[in-house]
């Protein structure tokens, strides 16, 4: 039987606010355990939460960017369960009335566009962390993260393949990073993704029994985990078995999902409106004020790059996947760089070097004006394209300008015909056999001579002049 997968995603994004969701503690990552806490986020008796306005704005901003309806009235609810990293014994979240509903995100898979519906986006607080290492028979609890604002984005079950799921998360990550509401770091857990997966025979409307998959902390693992889970479910059904509704954990080291808890063991969270917090009233003036802060998003920027700069789709895709990358590109173009040349350098050498060092574009020393300077040196014939790669590498490493590197290293292209001619004559003289073969019709030897000449000039000879001179001399016209 042919099966199709039905996938819905739940994404948790840590918001980039200075302070926590319900108190004034810092949200900074990586401090000494329990140093970023106060009576409120420790859950002392008698304390009260006060909502962080900036966090609410982040959620509204995201909602607007993904075409959600923003609720004029929403409220916080308590999700009750016991766990040592949850100091109040409940998490403040949203239940019946989330801030955003009914959104839409477009993804491109295998060249065609697909719409993924969003059920809701809501705001909640993160829990702390239990630490088991070095604690002997006990466990430690670090509450630095407790109370950090989290945005939960829930999709409709519109996703049909692991690839679509990964594309969706990539797109969403790009959006939240463009908006500056989340840093999107999946390894550190500031962007986390859970999936609900079921399968059904192709053509069937009714949904199959779903499992929830957790702990997929990279795009690669999302694809792998979902692929594994779909195959696992198909195998069970093909063998006449039954899917059990449960939560499963992805183990990336073993490449499998494994049961964590069954439906029967699932918590009854006893959600109810949090009486300590007043409802969130959002009026149109506030929404419009937030809308004004939204930058141009990946989709429309991609389209603009194609039409305005005449870039191929592939270039536009890559350059707009990160806001900083797109802005770097536009800055270079604005400074006079030819769009296609800039794009080529960025997609080629720059990406290669960033990937090698696992760096983001905003972290590298190279500035757009420096790339433009390099391109100009090539255009003016001051250096050759080949030398330019060496110069680029040097620029990237040292942050020095191209012309300075060219001068310091004496890399200026030699365009003086008489100077080059001497070298050409010299090479031809040293290789009489090859000259004979060329004249006998073996034209590809032109490259051999050019190579010899470049080697002799340490790559500085102007290749155009070298070629002209070679042709002239070899054809025997002089």
């Amino acid at each position, binding site marked *: 039987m042919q099966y199709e997968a039905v996938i819905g995603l739940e994404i948790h994004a840590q918001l980039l606010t200075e302070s926590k969701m319900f108190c004034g503690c810092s949200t900074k990552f990586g401090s000494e355990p329990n140093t970023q806490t106060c*009576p409120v986020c*420790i*859950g*002392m*008796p*008698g*304390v*009260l*939460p*006060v*909502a962080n306005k900036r966090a609410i704005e982040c959620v509204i901003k995201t909602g607007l960017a993904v075409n959600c309806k923003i609720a004029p009235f929403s409220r916080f609810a*308590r999700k*009750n369960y*016991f766990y*040592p990293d949850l*100091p*109040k*014994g*409940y998490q403040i979240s949203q239940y019946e009335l989330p801030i955003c509903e009914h959104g839409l995100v477009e993804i491109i898979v295998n060249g065609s566009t697909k719409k993924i519906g969003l059920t809701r986006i809501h705001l909640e607080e993160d829990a702390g962390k239990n630490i088991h290492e070095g604690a002997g028979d006990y466990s430690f*609890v670090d509450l630095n993260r407790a109370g950090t604002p989290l945005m939960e984005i829930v999709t409709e079950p519109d996703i049909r393949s692991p690839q679509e799921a990964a594309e969706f998360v990539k797109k969403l990550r790009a959006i939240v990073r463009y908006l500056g509401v989340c840093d999107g770091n999946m390894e550190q857990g500031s962007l986390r993704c859970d999936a609900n997966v079921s399968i059904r025979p192709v053509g069937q409307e009714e949904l199959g029994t779903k499992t929830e998959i957790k702990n997929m902390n990279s795009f690669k693992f999302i694809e792998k985990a979902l692929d594994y889970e779909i195959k696992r479910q198909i195998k069970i059904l093909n063998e006449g078995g039954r899917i059990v509704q449960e939560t499963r954990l992805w183990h990336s080291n073993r490449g499998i999902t494994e049961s964590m808890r069954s439906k029967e063991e699932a918590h*009854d969270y*006893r*959600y*109810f409106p949090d*009486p*300590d*917090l*007043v409802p969130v009233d959002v009026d149109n003036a506030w929404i419009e004020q937030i809308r004004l802060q939204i930058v141009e998003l990946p989709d429309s920027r991609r389209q603009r790059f194609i039409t305005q700069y005449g870039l191929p789709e592939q270039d536009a895709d890559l350059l707009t996947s990160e806001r900083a990358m797109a802005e770097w590109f536009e800055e270079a173009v604005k400074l006079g760089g030819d769009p296609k040349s800039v794009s080529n350098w960025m997609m080629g050498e720059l990406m290669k070097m960033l990937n090698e060092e696992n760096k983001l574009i905003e972290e590298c020393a190279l500035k757009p004006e420096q790339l433009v300077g390099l391109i100009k040196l090539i255009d003016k014939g001051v250096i050759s394209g080949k030398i330019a790669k060496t110069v680029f590498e040097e620029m990237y490493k040292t942050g020095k300008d191209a012309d300075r590197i060219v001068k310091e290293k004496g890399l200026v292209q030699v365009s003086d015909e008489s100077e080059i001619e001497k070298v050409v004559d010299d090479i031809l003289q040293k290789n009489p056999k090859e000259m004979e073969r060329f004249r006998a019709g073996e034209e590809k030897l032109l490259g051999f001579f050019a190579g010899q000449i470049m080697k002799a000039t340490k790559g500085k000879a102007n290749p155009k002049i070298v070629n002209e001179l070679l042709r002239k001399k070899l054809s025997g016209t002089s």
Partner: protein
Amino acid sequence: MELYSLSIEEALTAIDKGEISPVELTEAIFKRIEAVEDKIHSFVTLDKENSLIQARSAEDNIRRNIKQPLGGIPIAIKDNICTEGVRTTCSSKMLENFIPPYDSTIVKKLKEQRCILIGKTNLDEFAMGSSTENSSFGSTRNPWDVARVPGGSSGGSAAAVAADMCIAALGSDTGGSIRQPAAFCGVVGLKPTYGRVSRYGLVAFASSLDQIGPITKNVKDSAILLNIISGYDLRDSTSADLTVPDFTSAIGQDIKGMKLGVPKEYFIKGIDKEVAESVNAAINKLESLGAIPLEISLPHTGYAVATYYILATSEASSNLARYDGVKYGLRAAGGDLIDMYMKTREAGFGAEVKRRIILGTYTLSSGYYDAYYKKAQQVRTLVKQDFEKAFEKVDVIVTPTTPSPAFKAGEKTDDPLQMYLADIFTISVNLAGVPGISIPCGFTSQNLPVGLQIIGKHFDEETLLKTAYAYEQATDWHKRKPKL
């Protein structure tokens, strides 16, 4: 007159005139406590040493001519209100050794006034109860008859005021916990409008109903204390961002032509005959002062107790989840995490607290939420609307505070439902969020105080205090003192 029996107003006047010093007053109070506390047991924690330090600091300010409206006044605080460095137990084993690292907002305000915080008063564990018998640290007794309960849950505070072991006290009121003990102990207890006083630092029982308020020897003291503790607090988003009037300025205005609503649902069968007589006489007295009594109806009164016990327990089941043995308070040894949780909560909570946590967990559970919690919220809206409609016709509503005078210790401890009915006349006020005050309006043949409840509109404590004061000035019930 003994120093300890002074009211806030009298003590302030005497201090102002230089007749007494805060240190003398504080010493007199502690002497009184030493004499009668054994019989009453109002306090969980007494803080004589710090009190005297605070008294000297208040004296310094007086010498330096720094004016402080409440400077040097010894006040007792209910032990569910957090005090930095002084343990705050909620009368629970769970928090027996819990010392808050912070002050509640109202304690901060009192300290800024150079009030003297003499100690923490007993309550029903986590404010759950109507007799102050559900305390892990022994029950409090009624100064008018030590065989009887002082009411609850602010029984320690009400008894301390009645027995002159403090000049005034603070309590908290979730379903009547200030007004009912005030009525039983013959003192004045005010539950302000929900949102009038910050709840920051009040250990939550039922967050949507809890409110801190003064328990005092007379109405004017109530207004003086309310002036200090009221106001918007950035740390409590449910506190109201409204300008606070000077409540003492309402006092002394006459009540001619004022309309008094008398709800027929509050004068029911089962109400103690002497209580009914006292309250009716009080209404007549108010009428003689120019007020106009009008019969009104609050039709959903009969559902209030049931509604309250669903909403309050639901919220409590969640509010008390933080006492898990992990971070502070009691931790019982257990084999694994779940075992530790269970043993800690088994050992740390008393029977009534457990009963309410179980009840509230049930009413919030999936499959029951709509039938209980949601329905109760809807009824709460109806109860609120009852008051809104009534207040279209009347200025204040007058009722008995309780259906009976103070009952005997142990009389209702085995019958939780009977105990719950002790709050039948006070609960609706919390559900509606309106302010209510209980003032002494007579004594039974057994010399037990009777309370008159006056209920006002949202954020109209002024009219309520004005009415209470007019009545108080025309009677002398508040001047009677228990013989101890």
